[in-house]
């Protein structure tokens, strides 16, 4: 079956611009996660959705970052007034209902802020 997909695969933007990153989870997965991975680091948690609502957004670094999942499937991570320090690979993962620990990751979006 289809895995988690993310678009675009690469995004280059200028400092100060607004960007949107999209995630399509595995069909039927109710939990969706966003992580950010910087060079030489492991993925760092940003936000977790259970259905349409954000169950835990404690990893969002500041109010420039926002994510939505209006219909409980596709999610969009939105970054306002991008900064060079936002450059990283943004990973999305999904997990089935029922308390599964295993998360299934997409290929990521590489964001470069110039």
């Amino acid at each position, binding site marked *: 079956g289809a895995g988690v997909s993310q678009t675009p695969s690469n995004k280059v933007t200028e400092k100060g611009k607004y960007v949107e990153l999209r995630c399509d989870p595995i069909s039927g997965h109710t939990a969706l*996660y966003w992580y950010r991975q910087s060079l030489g680091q492991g993925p760092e948690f940003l936000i977790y959705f259970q259905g349409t609502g954000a169950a835990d957004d404690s990893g969002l670094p500041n109010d420039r970052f926002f994510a939505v999942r209006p219909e409980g499937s596709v999610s969009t991570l939105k970054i306002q007034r991008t900064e060079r320090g936002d450059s990283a690979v943004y990973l999305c993962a999904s997990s089935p209902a029922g308390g599964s620990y295993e998360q*299934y990751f997409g290929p*990521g979006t590489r964001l470069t802020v110039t």
Partner: protein
Amino acid sequence: DQQVKQNSPSLSVQEGRISILNCDYTNSMFDYFLWYKKYPAEGPTFLISISSIKDKNEDGRFTVFLNKSAKHLSLHIVPSQPGDSAVYFCAAAINTDKLIFGTGTRLQVFP
């Protein structure tokens, strides 16, 4: 504050030998541990996991050992194969919320 640590950034092993990747953690509340494998330009792929109530879990060539008193876990791959060459991440969780990842260990298996 790094709650999950992988102190070896790289490991090189000959094909056919055992690879041992290590991971330490600080939070005694973690109740589940996972290993992920990552190839360049791909997302992490789930490999194997273990609940905190167990001390060993085996799946084919992969075995994960958990030592709760030492707050240490390890992944054993035997025999190692060239296709195992990748970056391996250790991750820990409390309930089914976010995963906390280590910084990864790059494994290279040479012929």
